[in-house]
């Protein structure tokens, strides 16, 4: 196969369609959002075109700073946990016979078809006092009386990791399936334990995949606004929840847009930093 840079319009054509989609569905909406974020809010009404930064000023307070750091921290934790669980899982999965692999993948895909609402309600029922899992513990004699485990930070974390897990596995699967099994076998022949081979050969070998997947899950978790309402207490509401409140319930589009722009910029910056750190390690 000859690899060279495409020349002329005809060879560039295949990229035109995705580029067009990117412009239509990302660049234009995001530009509109930036425009609205500097519009002037009319209290008790709507907004008027203007160039003011009051919406950003309102955001730059300790209160929103706290909510923002919580949202970022939560998304990071969800990303690390999801990849931490999904990586060993997928590693085992690719070693199963083909039939079993397909059954697992179909099962994971079917979880993907569940909406956030269903996942939220299912977890809140599962963790409830009246119908939840603690009733089982009581029946088994492990607990004295049923307890309510939701809403709480743990419940929220469980819900978010559950939701992100199938995505994580499906992203890791191709890379792990392609990993040359001889690498590990070589490590084993040279005397390392399976655990040691996993951590010194498999994990470093797929470091870029792991970083990319973690970033993907991080961004995915950052946008979650329904589960924090269903499974978390108010102190666990993410910035996305407050953005929804402003846009839908307070009809304050400029402020909602300003918060959203800020969230996008901060997450882009973090993703950029993570990639930069990854590259530097590689060259070092």
């Amino acid at each position, binding site marked *: 196969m000859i690899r060279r840079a495409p020349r002329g319009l005809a060879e560039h054509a295949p990229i035109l369609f995705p580029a067009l989609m990117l412009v239509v569905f990302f660049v234009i909406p995001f530009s509109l959002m930036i425009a609205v974020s500097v519009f002037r809010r009319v209290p008790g009404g709507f907004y008027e075109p203007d160039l003011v930064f009051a919406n950003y000023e309102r955001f730059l307070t300790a209160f929103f700073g706290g909510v923002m750091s919580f949202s970022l921290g939560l998304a990071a934790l969800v990303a690390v946990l999801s990849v931490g669980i999904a990586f060993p899982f997928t590693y085992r999965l690719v070693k199963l016979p083909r039939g079993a692999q397909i059954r697992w993948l179909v099962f994971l895909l079917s979880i993907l078809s569940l909406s956030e609402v269903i996942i939220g309600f299912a977890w809140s029922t599962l963790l409830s006092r*009246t*119908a939840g899992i603690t009733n089982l513990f009581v029946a088994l004699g492990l607990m004295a009386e049923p307890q309510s485990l939701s809403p709480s930070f743990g419940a929220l974390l469980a819900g978010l990791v559950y939701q992100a897990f199938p995505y994580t596995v499906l992203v890791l699967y191709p890379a792990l399936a392609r990993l040359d099994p001889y690498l590990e076998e070589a490590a084993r022949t040279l005397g390392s334990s399976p655990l040691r081979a996993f951590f010194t050969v498999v994990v470093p070998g797929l470091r870029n995949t792991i970083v990319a997947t973690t970033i993907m899950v991080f961004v995915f978790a950052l946008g979650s606004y329904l589960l924090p309402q269903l499974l978390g207490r108010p*102190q666990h509401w993410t910035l996305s929840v407050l953005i929804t409140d402003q846009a839908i319930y307070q009809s304050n589009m400029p402020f909602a847009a300003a918060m959203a722009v800020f969230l996008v910029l901060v997450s882009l910056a973090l993703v950029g930093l993570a990639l930069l750190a990854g590259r530097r390690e590689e060259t070092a």
Partner: protein
Amino acid sequence: MNETTGKQGLHAALAGGISRRAVLAGAGTLATAAAIGFPNIVRAQSKTLKVGVYGGYFKESFEKHIFPEFSKATGITVEAIAEPTGEAWLVQLEQAARARQAPADVSMMSQVAMLKGASAELWAPFDLSKIPNAAKVVPHLVNKYPDGKVSGIGAVSWYITLVTNTKSYPQAPDSWAALWDPANKDKLGLLALVSNSFLLEVTAATFFGGTKHLDSEQGQLDCFKKLAELKSNVKLWYRDEAQFEASLKSGEIPMGQYYHDVTGLAAADGQPVRSTFPKEGGILDSGSWAVTRASKAGDLAHVFVDYMCQPSIQALLSRKVGTAPTIDRKLTDLTDQEFAAVSSDIAPIIPRYDLYTSKSDWLNQKWTEMIVG
């Protein structure tokens, strides 16, 4: 929707016999039949009115019980449009009106949305001389522009009351003060937004002698401070009604604020829930009919609103949709039992809608900081 069908079935059975409207309907059908011979005339005369009502249970009930009757009586076809709750619909109407479009001609709007729309002059004024029945509507449910023109007319009212699970609370609480009782730690479900929970008003009415206390900023801060004391009792601040309703029925969250009508329907269906009008009063909220300025069906809208204000229709709404009448109860033929199912004689807490336009951003910020912080 099991709890609704039971009640509706009962009322359908009660509402038998041939009514005056059925006869009118017959006449209407004749007129339509005559017109079918002349397709061009039908097209010229086709009278369709787009009416926006809250999607879900409300829209279903209106389409099943109210709109067909209206079409029979007037020959005007209704196209029901599902409105989202919150203020999203207001934003859509306003954006559409800027482009001279009307996604719905008449919409049922919440009071806060009415005021916000009025400040943008979104609503076409009503001509009351074309709506004789509007005179029956309780005066505070007629919305007016500052110059006195009528922007909206009360469509339906509903109460938000103190609700409890009867298994967890054999004795019904009699005051909103129960929300502050330390014994109810981690047991409450309350609405999550300042502009739909109306808890500032409840606090003012329960501890500061009435909602007038909210006139001053100091009064508002007093209420926020008092409200902050009940935070540890709250298990769930809900935006989504279904979420609280399920938890109330199961006893997971055995107390809170909720809609009187829906709670009544659930209780009638055998669920262990009850709705209580506290001695300070239930919260009386309401929706108004309003016409967007972009609508070209203003005349039909007047006919529609007049029809909806009739005592017989207000009674029908109470029986079938579970809302409280917007006209004096004595004008309707509702029995005591039917009235009690949708309302109460205890003076209600009327929300301070004015605050949610004049100080909405400040109140919202304080509120969010109070419950999140």
